[in-house]
């Protein structure tokens, strides 16, 4: 069945500066295109399409990959097969979609992936029959139809809970990666974790016209024990419905630092930073998952099975998956704990991916 793309004008800049300029010229009516494996399916469904598409595929500045930094235009397959990036990052890249999609998809597109929902990722015809939703063309949410406002239950015309579905984001957040953007006001670098913010529509603190240039890994990313585990209906093709990335440091079997990032359970990946629960960024008020509520103190403790159980119980309790992607929220919630427990035991026992 052929699904027609909506009409748009295609721009193919070859430098970053040119792309930034084009974005300013078409402000409000454009999308960037990298590998196209997320944008084009969404366009085919008539989801928030724009009149101009600016391709980033011909910009050499976005395509370098080294030990410590990965350009936004680097294809997923080239991360998967790279021997210099941390093994956990290459492994996670290999968990994304299918070999064919990894050949087209890029890091930038993976981190800027649109959130997913049963009521959103559907054809125009399908959505038309039920009535559109907040995230595209409509004024209500079919997943959370009512919200509490001042003690009264009112129609939800404000908050979208579409699920963040990138595999690499939680792994890179656990490793403490930074992201660099180029925009009309120059470039800026922020923590990847601080970038994700807000509900299923806002998704991140992204300033209009900004291009993701690269992801930078701290030196520690090569030193810590790290890994990723994904839950999906099938082992290939499918998006994650829960994904756990962990970076762990042990000192004689005792926890020196522990960062667990969980993907595909909320509108953004959720970081459980057991090392520094004190100075955390204010959490998005939309996020239903609160990583720091009753967080157990694990620092300096022996990472035995009992402690692993405590940590995974905490993660299981706090994660709040919604009924808007495949598989039951209750099952996914439980699996967040199970994946954490298995991965922590593997990392402690020195099993690498």
């Amino acid at each position, binding site marked *: *069945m*052929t*699904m*027609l*793309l*909506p*009409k*748009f*004008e*295609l721009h*193919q800049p070859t430098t970053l500066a040119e792309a930034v300029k084009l974005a300013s010229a078409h402000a409000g009516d454009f999308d960037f*295109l990298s*590998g*196209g*494996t997320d944008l*084009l*399916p969404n366009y*085919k469904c008539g989801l928030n399409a724009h009149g101009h*598409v600016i*391709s980033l*595929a011909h910009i050499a500045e976005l395509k370098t990959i080294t030990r410590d930094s990965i350009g936004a235009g680097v294809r997923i397959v080239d991360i998967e097969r790279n021997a210099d990036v941390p093994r956990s990052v290459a492994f996670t890249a290999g968990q994304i*979609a*299918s*070999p*064919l*999609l990894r*050949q*087209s998809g890029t890091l930038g597109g993976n981190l800027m992936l649109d959130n997913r929902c049963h009521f959103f990722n559907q054809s125009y015809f399908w959505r038309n029959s039920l009535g559109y939703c907040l995230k595209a063309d409509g004024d209500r949410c079919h997943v959370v139809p009512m919200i509490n406002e001042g003690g009264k239950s009112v129609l939800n015309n404000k908050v979208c809970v579409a699920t963040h579905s990138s595999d690499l984001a939680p792994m890179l957040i656990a490793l403490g990666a930074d992201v660099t953007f180029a925009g009309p006001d120059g470039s800026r670098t922020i923590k990847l974790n601080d970038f994700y913010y807000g509900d299923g529509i806002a998704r991140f603190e992204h300033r209009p016209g900004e291009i993701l240039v690269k992801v930078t890994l701290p030196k520690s990313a090569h030193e810590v024990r790290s890994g990723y585990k994904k839950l999906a209906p099938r*082992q*290939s*093709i499918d998006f994650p419905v829960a994904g756990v990335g962990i970076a762990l440091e042990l000192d004689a079997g005792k926890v020196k630092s522990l960062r667990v990032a969980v993907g595909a359970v909320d509108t953004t990946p959720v970081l459980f930073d057991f090392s520094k629960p004190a100075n955390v960024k204010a959490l998005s008020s939309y996020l239903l998952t609160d990583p720091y509520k009753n967080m157990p103190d694990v620092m300096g403790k022996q990472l035995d099975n009992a402690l692993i159980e405590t940590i995974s119980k905490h993660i299981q309790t706090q994660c709040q998956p919604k009924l808007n992607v495949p598989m039951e929220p209750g099952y996914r919630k439980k699996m967040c704990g199970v994946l954490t427990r298995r991965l922590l035991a593997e990392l402690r026992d020195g099993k690498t991916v």
Partner: protein
Amino acid sequence: MSKHILRFHVNDRAVEVAVEPWHTLANVLRNDLNLTGTKIGCDMGTCGCCTVHVDGKARLSCLTLALECQGAKIATIEGLNEYEIHPLQRAFAECGGSQCGYCTPGFIMQSCAMLKENPDPTRDEIKAGLSGNLCRCTGFMKIYEAVERAATEMREKPVSAPVKA
């Protein structure tokens, strides 16, 4: 919004065609160039039917804009081997790796790209390599057998390069 001229090579022939910016490579191959061997199954990246080679790499033509292939070398199932049946094609036929045949061009193009990188894959490597292609008829086992048989044949007797027209 107007058509743009796309100049590229398809199955070793230089081609010039006027295309709309929103047409995918699959649309252009099938509708403008009449190369209907490339199939469109889902048109959403989930089935692998539309697999072709772009500059030697297997790519989903349904998620590739035609104009993004400016100057590229495309190979489709029609160009796999013009004058002689390709070992992969023969193995798929002989092993029963093709029933309705709709998925077959995609499977063969992906297998071909995979065997170029790894001429002697294990059964697990074949499974992983073909895990982005779906077949609703054969049950996959015969497809894996066909790829194994073709791989053996191609290692013993390399395929002659397609003849340039």
